[in-house]
Each structure stands twice: as structure tokens, then as C-alpha cells.
């Protein structure tokens, strides 16, 4: 056994024994380097004393490129930092190898621990062996992470951000389950196919999520395609969950779009607590078992990566929501058009019919003309209302606001209606409760015509529902409450049918002979467009109903005269 490698120019591979030889060999190899020194070391502390000075010296002498891989831990950080001044240092978890390879030579200790009495050291300058070792070193180097990051993690106590690929199905499954079990705040889940949902259901993931919701108030959001089977599974789950529990958010949105329309159709994405993401592929969606179906997975706790998956989830989530809203909206539009066209055809039929018949029936001309007029007016009201509704719905209702005193306007309208009631011999009495207080005018910034429209609508309704009674009373009152005016119209009529009450302010909720069915919807929309509210309730004494609306008082109080500008 020679004590030193043969440097006569021949290529050899040999084994040397003993600590002393090991150390000598190391320094020989380092000193033999010309351009590069690459070292893998699993025990930096033990070797620091002997090897670091050698390395430092040689690197400085020849300006060689020095690279060093070790497992950086708390106890060896300072040595690593020393070496970082000499060359590049990287960290590799669980490294268990020791060697040095230069541009020409390779040396490795099988075990270089103090405890071993006779370490064996291998040396070679055989070109192919050296190149093999350089190749191995490159691979380890590429797997390793820069020392700075690891040191930051250790010193800063922050978790190292990593992204890595997992090939083994069992590991993927375990990781998936562990992630779900460990969730504290929120889980986002995208499932690509119906089978994926069923696989994960069988695996127990859904149950784990329900448990997390129950026990830790975790927010769970799932995007998944569904079918009847899944729908019934979910129904059972949600039922059993909702029984007696405080309901936290279990939000499941079904992707009812075709796979081409959705952004994700082949992978499952799981994001936990906005910190970790797991994305896995399916190799065979027909398999019932998760292990058999799953392909590769990518795990990441690196913020940029996780955030990108969150944004995929959020945009798909919103997209599904918008799609549903759109469908509902389309459906409602279609319904409205159907009903509106039906409503319009009714008076149109009457006008056309009588117009056709009037020639053949001159004796009935008076009656028919009246019917034609009546229906023409009805049609006109309806078209106006429909136009108003379309303006409201498309947010193009233009309000021409001016400042005026609401009390005055109401007085004027009531006066008009009193006259109308007398003329029509309606047995209804109309009262207006308002004490003009000079010190407390009620100015509002509003569209006078539109507010008139609202009040007229409410009064018309009140009269309609009260006229059937022997003696009906309608009272209009207005008062100020803080920064609002409150206008109430109370009648002693039939009251509101409790079945209709919830839909009272919707389109075509009630269709009476003289009404269009849109009046309340329009009135409420006008009031709300002014920043007010409108509601209705049956009177507590059981007789009739009260409709109320509020409007904000004008913020700039100009001096309001008690007569209107035009002297009314």
C-alpha cells in the first residue's frame, strides 16, 4: 500500500487506508486542482479543522472555481459561512456522501467519521471515473439549494419554500390527506371530473373536510362537475352537517360548463390556508381507486406558486357564479318578455277587434268607441310602464332633480285626487295629515314628476282596494325623521294578500283589470334611485294596508317658500 497516489502520469485507481492517508490524499487532490474543486461533505464540522484552510489556500492561489455541498444545520452554520467566503455553498437535505472531484482527480472516503478507526479512501485519476463523479456532483449540485436560503430559514425560523414533484401515488395520497387534516382556515379544491370527485369521496376527503368545518370552522370551497349521483351524495352530507350545527361556509359550485369552457379539466388543485398547494394529474380517470388513477403531483409552499393557483381558483369560482347569474337573468328576462307581450296583446286585441267590427255594427258604435279608447289608454299605460321598467333595469333611468318641498307636492296631489274621487263618486274619503311648520320645511332633491308618479301609483292602488268597501278612508301623512322624510299612505281596504306580500314589489306580481302589474316595481325603483326605501304592511288593526316610503332630505337647505314657484 503506497502512502501517496502515484503521480507519474499513469492513470490509476487505488484504495488507501487510515485517517492520515485520508487527510493527505485530500490535500493532494485539492492541490492538484487547476480550475475546479467540487466537494460533497456530510460532516463539515469534523472536517473543518483539517480541510478548510487547504481549500481556501488553493482557491486563492489559482483562482479555482470552488463548489461545496453539505447539509446545513444549526450547529454548522458558522463553518458554512466561512466557506461561503471562499466559493459557492449549497445545501442538500440528508446528504450522505463524501468526495472531492477536481478537473483531473477524484477522491472519496467511504466513511469519514471519527469513530471509524480505519477509513478507506478511494482515489482515481482515470478520466472516465473522474467524469462520472463530476456528473454525479453536477446532479447533486442541481438538486441542492443555495446556502443563503437555508441559512435564512434556520436563522429566521421561516419555513423553507419548496416546490417539488412527487411520483409515488402512495406518497401523493398521504400528502393530500395530511394537508387536509392539517388545515386551519381555508381549503380550496378544484376537481376536474365526476370520477375524481367520487374517488376523493371514497378516500374520505369530503368527510375530512366536513370534519374540519365542524371542528375548526374551516372555510371550504369546492369547484366540481356534478351529476345526479354526486348531487344526492352532497345533499345527504349537507343535511347531516346542517343538523343542529352552526353553519360555516360549505360552498360548492358545480361546474356546469363543458370541459372546453372551463380552464381546468385534467388536474386536481388543492390549496390549503393560502400557504400550500398540491396539484395532481390523472393518468386514468376510469379507475375507481385514487392510487391507480393518479399520475404525478406537484407540491409547493412557495408563495408565488401558491398565489397563482389561488388566482386560478378564484377566477374559475367567479366565472361559475357569473354564469349562473347570467342564466338566471336570461330566464327572468325571457319571463318578463313573455308576460309583457301577453299583457300588451290583450288591449291590442280589443282595439283591433272592435275596430274590425265597428263598421258592421253602427248601432253599437258608442260602446265600441269607448272600449277602444279604454283599451288604447290601457295600452299606453302599459307601454309607458314597460319602457320605465327597461330603463330601470338597464340603469338608464334619468332623474331630473330639483329642490322642492315634499309636503307641498303631496298637498297638491291630494287635492287633485279629492276632485277625482268626487267626480267618480267613489265612496272613499281622502285625508292629508300634515302640519306645515315654517321652522321645519321638508325640502328634498328629487325628480318631481317621478315622485308624483310614485304617489299617484300608491293612491290609485289605495283607491282600487278601498272602493269595494262601503266607506273607505285613505290617509296620507308625512313626517320628518332625522335626515329623512317618511311618507305613508294608509287605507282601510282589503289589505294585502299574505301570499303575494313577499312578491309585492316584483314585476307583474299582481295583475288587476286596470293595473299594469308593474306600478309597485317602478315606484320602489324610483324611490330607491333617489336613495330612499319603500315597504308595505297590512295594518295591525286588520283593516287595510299601509305603504310607506322614505326620501333623504336635501342637504343644502335653501329657504323654501311655502308656495310653489308657479303659484300653485
Amino acid at each position, binding site marked *: 500500500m503506497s502512502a501517496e497516489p502515484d503521480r507519474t502520469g499513469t492513470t490509476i485507481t487505488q484504495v488507501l487506508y487510515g485517517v492520515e492517508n485520508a487527510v493527505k490524499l485530500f490535500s493532494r487532490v485539492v492541490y492538484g486542482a487547476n480550475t475546479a474543486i467540487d466537494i460533497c461533505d456530510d460532516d463539515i464540522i469534523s472536517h473543518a479543522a483539517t480541510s478548510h484552510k487547504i481549500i481556501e489556500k488553493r482557491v486563492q492561489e489559482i483562482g479555482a472555481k470552488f463548489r461545496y455541498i453539505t447539509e446545513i444545520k444549526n450547529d454548522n452554520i458558522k463553518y458554512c459561512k466561512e466557506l461561503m467566503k471562499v466559493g459557492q455553498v449549497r445545501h442538500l437535505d440528508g446528504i450522505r456522501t463524501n468526495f472531492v472531484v477536481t478537473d483531473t482527480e477524484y477522491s472519496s472516503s467511504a466513511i469519514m467519521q471519527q469513530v471509524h478507526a480505519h477509513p478507506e479512501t478511494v482515489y482515481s485519476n482515470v478520466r472516465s471515473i473522474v467524469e462520472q463523479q463530476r456528473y454525479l456532483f453536477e446532479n447533486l449540485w442541481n438538486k441542492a439549494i443555495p446556502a443563503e436560503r437555508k441559512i435564512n430559514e434556520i436563522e429566521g425560523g421561516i419555513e423553507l419554500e419548496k416546490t417539488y414533484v412527487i411520483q409515488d401515488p402512495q406518497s401523493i395520497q398521504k400528502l393530500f390527506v395530511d394537508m387536509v387534516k392539517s388545515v386551519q382556515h381555508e381549503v380550496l379544491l378544484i376537481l376536474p371530473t365526476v370520477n375524481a370527485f367520487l374517488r376523493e369521496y371514497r378516500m374520505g376527503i369530503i368527510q375530512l373536510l366536513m370534519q374540519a368545518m365542524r371542528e375548526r370552522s374551516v372555510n371550504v370551497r369546492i369547484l366540481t362537475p356534478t351529476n345526479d349521483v354526486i348531487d344526492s351524495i352532497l345533499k345527504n352530507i349537507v343535511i347531516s352537517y346542517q343538523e343542529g350545527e352552526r353553519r360555516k361556509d360549505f360552498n360548492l359550485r358545480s361546474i356546469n360548463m363543458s370541459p372546453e369552457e372551463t380552464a381546468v379539466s385534467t388536474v386536481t388543485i388543492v390549496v390549503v390556508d393560502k400557504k400550500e398547494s398540491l396539484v395532481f394529474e390523472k393518468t386514468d380517470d376510469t379507475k375507481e381507486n385514487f392510487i391507480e388513477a393518479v399520475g404525478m403531483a406537484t407540491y409547493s409552499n412557495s408563495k408565488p406558486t401558491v398565489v397563482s393557483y389561488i388566482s386560478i381558483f378564484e377566477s374559475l369560482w367567479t366565472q361559475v357564479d357569473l354564469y349562473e347569474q347570467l342564466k338566471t337573468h336570461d330566464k327572468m328576462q325571457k319571463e318578463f*318578455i*313573455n308576460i309583457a*307581450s*301577453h299583457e300588451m*296583446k*290583450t288591449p*291590442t*286585441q*280589443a282595439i*283591433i*277587434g*272592435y275596430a*274590425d*267590427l265597428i263598421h*258592421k*255594427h253602427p248601432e253599437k258604435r258608442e260602446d265600441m268607441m269607448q*272600449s277602444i279608447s279604454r*283599451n288604447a289608454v290601457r295600452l299606453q299605460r302599459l307601454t309607458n310602464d314597460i319602457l320605465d321598467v327597461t330603463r330601470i333595469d338597464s340603469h338608464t333611468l334619468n332623474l331630473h332633480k330639483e329642490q322642492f318641498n315634499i309636503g307641498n307636492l303631496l298637498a297638491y296631489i291630494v287635492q287633485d285626487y279629492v276632485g277625482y274621487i268626487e267626480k267618480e263618486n267613489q265612496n272613499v274619503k281622502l285625508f292629508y295629515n300634515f302640519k306645515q311648520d315654517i321652522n321645519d320645511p321638508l325640502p328634498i332633491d328629487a325628480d318631481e314628476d317621478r315622485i308624483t308618479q310614485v304617489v299617484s301609483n300608491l293612491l290609485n292602488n289605495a283607491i282600487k282596494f278601498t272602493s269595494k268597501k262601503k266607506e273607505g278612508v285613505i290617509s296620507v301623512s308625512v313626517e320628518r325623521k332625522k335626515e329623512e322624510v317618511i311618507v305613508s299612505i294608509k287605507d282601510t281596504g282589503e289589505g294585502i294578500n299574505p301570499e303575494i306580500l313577499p312578491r309585492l314589489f316584483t314585476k307583474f306580481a299582481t295583475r288587476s283589470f286596470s293595473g299594469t302589474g308593474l306600478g309597485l316595481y317602478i315606484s320602489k325603483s324610483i324611490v330607491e334611485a333617489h336613495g330612499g326605501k319603500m315597504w308595505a304592511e297590512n295594518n295591525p288593526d286588520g283593516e287595510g294596508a299601509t305603504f310607506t316610503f322614505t326620501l333623504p332630505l336635501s342637504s343644502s337647505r335653501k329657504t323654501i317658500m311655502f308656495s310653489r314657484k308657479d303659484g300653485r
Partner: protein
Amino acid sequence: MAKEKKNKILVVDDEPDNTSIFSMSLEDGGFEVDAYTDPLLALSMFKSGHKKYDYLVLDIKMPDMNGFELYEEIRKIDNKVKACFLTAFGEGYTEEFGRRFPTSTNVSFMRKPIRVDDLVKKVNKMVNT
């Protein structure tokens, strides 16, 4: 002068203006017409069997009982009776119509608003086939 046998038409529409117009039109066209705005009343009159009708002109959208339902009930009494349905609605009812009456020999369909002449022509055609 022998009394001409007039065809008898039953008209049911919940709008009084419509029943007036359709009755007058058909009477002008030479038919004998009974008109009702209440489908339930019309049904009970039909059941009491005083008159036999050659043709029915029925509005579809009515409260209490719609035109299709009324027709089904009437068919239980006289399953050969022919009918024409009037509707102000669009495609929705044509679908339901197609479903309920896949073989449309005894039934037909008209969309409102209807011209007087068209109504008379249609009823003439259906009664005489």
C-alpha cells in the same frame, strides 16, 4: 223559410272584451255562439248537456282553469269535439301545445291579436272538415 242549421260555437276567454268581440265576429259569420268568461261555469254548462257544440274557441291563459285543462275535461264528455286555442303568449305555449296534442287533427291554434275575418275563416275551415 226553413231555419238554417247553424253551427254552434262555444267561446271561453277571461277578458270580457274578447268574448264580446269573438261572439260578435262569429255571429256575423253565421254561427250560433255561447260565450263565457268563466271556464268553470262553461264546463258545468257543457256538462249539463243542454247544447251540443260543433266547435270550441278557447283562450289558453285563464285563472282557475286554463284552456288546455278545460279542453281535457270537455273531451271526457265528448271526445270528438274540435277546438281552437287562442294565445297571446309566444313559443312557450306552442311547445306545451305540441306536447299535449301530438296528433293535431281535432285541435288547432291561433295567436292573438286575431282579426275578425281570420277567426271566421278559421272556424269555417275547421268545422267543415
